[in-house]
């Protein structure tokens, strides 16, 4: 069972890294978790996505949220307005993911992230 233990420890370590990104950038961490589960632990894409959704069910950001709230960095009203749409959209996306081959979709998404990230880094530092 040493191998299973090693795999579990590996997954836990990767999750900690994703968690650090989650707290630093105010995100769920799935965007890092999904490709890492696939690349490091050879999860199939659908399985990595389903597993990532499990990890997002408990309030993993709760401790980080408290730290942000203490500094007054939470807009509660905007949050409440965003939640219902995300929930409903999530169901639609989940059904869509079964129908689509999400490979091309993911490449497009990677492209958008790349452009968005470059733009954000430049707009922050390039003055």
């Amino acid at each position: 069972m040493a191998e299973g233990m090693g795999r579990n420890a590996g997954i836990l370590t990767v999750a900690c890294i994703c968690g650090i990104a989650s707290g630093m950038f105010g995100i769920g961490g799935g965007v890092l978790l999904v490709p890492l589960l696939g690349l490091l632990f050879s999860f199939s894409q659908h399985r990595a996505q389903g597993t990532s959704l499990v990890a997002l069910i408990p309030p993993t950001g709760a401790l980080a949220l408290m730290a942000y709230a203490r500094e007054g960095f939470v807009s509660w009203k905007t949050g409440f307005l965003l939640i219902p749409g995300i929930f409903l959209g999530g169901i639609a996306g989940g059904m869509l993911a079964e129908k689509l081959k999400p490979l091309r979709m993911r490449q497009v998404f990677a492209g958008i992230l790349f452009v968005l990230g470059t733009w954000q880094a430049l707009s922050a530092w390039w003055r």
Partner: protein
Amino acid sequence: MTLMILLLGLGAGVLVGLLGIGGGVVLVPAMVYLLGMDQHLAQGTSLFILLPPIGLGALREYWKQGQVDLRAGILCALGMLFGALGGSLVALPMSSRNVKGLFGCFLVLSAILLWRKAQVETRAPIAGGERAHG
């Protein structure tokens, strides 16, 4: 404004289900650029949005297909809970500008990882399929 926020949520939600992610990665830049929020405020609000189980509806669809590794998921949740606390303690004292820039770098890194994953996937079926070389 309210309608725009509601629609923004719906759009982010589709990505949640489609890609199995939390949605924060698109919500944070959207709040910064479309709603004109400060970087820290957008990140705190995004963490708040992730508090309720917004992915539950999407998870149900994956569960029906048997595409869930429950044990690994629980391990990940555990690691992320404490990792997130650590990350927030790093980011909060930093200036908004630097966090914004780092966020951009993080997006680029994620994009590269996602792209690589997609490449690995495309290569496998082609090698085993029509062209049985090697």
